[in-house]
């Protein structure tokens, strides 16, 4: 890839990451999180181009919706780069309700023998979540078009993804069937009775292939670091590589900066003519101020709740349970509407000791610097100012 093309792909990635966020009003932007990865990587077979890695995500995680934009440009092999932008939207009603997901991906790459390629995937399907268990099934269609040497290649296929997650362990199975249609112009010269004749013909080939794969991912937290281990295997008519494995680790350095490293072996992507490669990369991940809260654990989902109790000395303890965050604040008429940070007290448990008199108190909660909302599990009232507020009844 030429330096100009590389710069273009990086610029496209940056624009894909930043433009949608910049277009949002400030009040809405506060509810989004975004990350940007900048780093470097190596591959085997060896990369001969510039091994820069640029990527990022933008998430909106509300109580009933998850919107995500992911963009990544990373080195492949032989000066090739892989650039991909993906849009995902998921909606659900209630903690155990049905949801739907639509995702699209568009990528360009130069794989060996395939100078350019553009791919688009569309997936949709229901998902179901209850507590730590999630089941999803997505059916989709995929289309790839490209060119190599003198060929025009067109691949179209169908995808069926199924996912099952128990807490931090996920298993995904995928079935793919695709047809690759290659068309080549053939010019030939033959001699009849001493005279040369030129002929032009178009040769077409159609190859139908299918495969099935299974992949398992395990997320693991060790202190402040977050690790993900991945392993997968594939069976089918065309096999580039039967297995793949990898790991990634993220070590937060500050609340807004983390070190991310990835290492492993990627499987081939048969329909895209991409071979298996070994890879290693190191990147710096930059978070925006409302980062690192897992979108699946937005307040109000699952068993999140706010409790009040008195300690042995009679002081009131306000406890927020079941919310995954790095900062939780409360404000209300018990503290003159001045935000007070809760302190972490165990896994997804936060506490605030406060002097609260008996009576009815109005309260709001903020997670990771987002919008002020009614805390989970408390009574709700619309205030005279047109916004909802939580009500706490404190007895003697």
């Amino acid at each position: 890839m030429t330096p100009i093309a590389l710069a273009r792909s990086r610029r496209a990635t940056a624009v894909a990451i930043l433009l949608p966020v910049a277009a949002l009003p400030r009040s809405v932007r506060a509810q989004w999180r975004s990350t940007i990865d900048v780093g470097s990587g190596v591959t085997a077979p060896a990369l001969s181009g510039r091994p820069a890695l640029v990527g990022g995500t933008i998430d909106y995680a509300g109580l009933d919706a998850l919107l995500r934009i992911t963009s990544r440009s990373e080195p492949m092999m032989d000066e090739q780069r892989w650039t991909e932008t993906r849009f995902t939207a998921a909606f659900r009603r209630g903690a155990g309700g049905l949801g739907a997901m639509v995702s699209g991906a568009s990528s360009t790459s130069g794989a060996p023998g395939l100078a350019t390629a553009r791919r688009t995937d569309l997936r949709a399907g229901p998902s179901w979540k209850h507590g730590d268990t999630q089941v999803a099934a997505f059916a989709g269609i995929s289309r790839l078009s490209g060119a190599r040497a003198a060929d025009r290649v067109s691949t179209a296929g169908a995808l069926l993804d199924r996912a099952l997650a128990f807490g931090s362990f996920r298993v995904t199975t995928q079935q793919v069937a695709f047809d690759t249609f290659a068309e080549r112009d053939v010019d030939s010269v033959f001699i009849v009775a001493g005279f040369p004749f030129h002929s032009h013909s178009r040769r077409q080939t159609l190859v139908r292939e299918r495969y099935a794969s299974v992949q398992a991912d395990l997320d693991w937290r060790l202190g402040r670091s977050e690790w993900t281990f991945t392993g997968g295997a594939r069976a089918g008519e065309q096999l580039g590589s039967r297995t793949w494995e990898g790991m990634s680790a993220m070590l937060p350095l500050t609340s807004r900066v983390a070190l991310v490293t990835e290492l492993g072996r990627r499987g081939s992507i048969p329909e895209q003519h991409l071979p298996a490669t070994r890879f290693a990369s190191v990147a710096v991940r930059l978070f925006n101020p409302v980062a690192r809260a897992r979108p699946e654990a937005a307040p109000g989902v699952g068993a999140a709740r706010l409790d009040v109790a008195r300690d042995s000395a009679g002081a009131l303890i306000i406890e927020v349970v079941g919310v995954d965050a790095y900062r939780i604040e409360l404000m209300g008429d018990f503290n003159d509407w001045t935000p007070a940070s809760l302190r972490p007290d165990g896994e997804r448990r936060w506490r605030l000791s406060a002097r609260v008199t008996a009576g009815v108190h109005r309260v709001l909660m903020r997670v990771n610097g987002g919008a002020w909302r009614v805390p989970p599990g408390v009574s709700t009232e619309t205030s005279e100012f047109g916004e909802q507020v939580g009500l706490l009844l404190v007895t003697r």
Partner: protein
Amino acid sequence: MRRTAALLIFAALRAAPAQNARIDSLFAPPVRAELNAVLAGAAADRLPSEPLVQRALEGARRGVEPARVVSAVRAFADRLRIARSALGPASTDAELVAGAGVLYAGADRTTLERLRRVEPRRDLALPLIVMADIIERGVPRDTATSVIIALGEAHVRDVDYQLLRQSIVLDIGSGATPAAAAAARARGILLNPPGPRPPR
């Protein structure tokens, strides 16, 4: 006796500027004067002043324009007056605040009077909060009123009101209409109250 009265007066004099100081720090003089007038009127009617101050602080912290804050605090004071008159002079501050919330949700004073009649000696703060909450969640006002008064007539416990609210929230989340959820859950509590009743 004289000493106690002097102490009470001293405490009252100390308390009043403290409330004003919080308002003074957040509002311009004309708004401050209007808010203090509302507070003085409330104090004259022996209404709790702290909820009024807090309502003003809430508006300021939320960035609401001052004129709207004054009008909200004034309307809140009026609702506290109506709640006091409907629930009786012995009602607690928590009952008055909760009663004002029910009035703001759309119920009328006769609802508060009926609830007090059926539960003359009980602290009605929780039933009133639950009534306002389920109205907020879409239960029609008449249904919410009937349900809470029916539970009051049955002298159910506080935990039953909490159970009613949680059940309605779950049912609505599962797709039930708010009215049906409220009626069904109240019926369930009235027909089969969970756990032993405390001695009355």
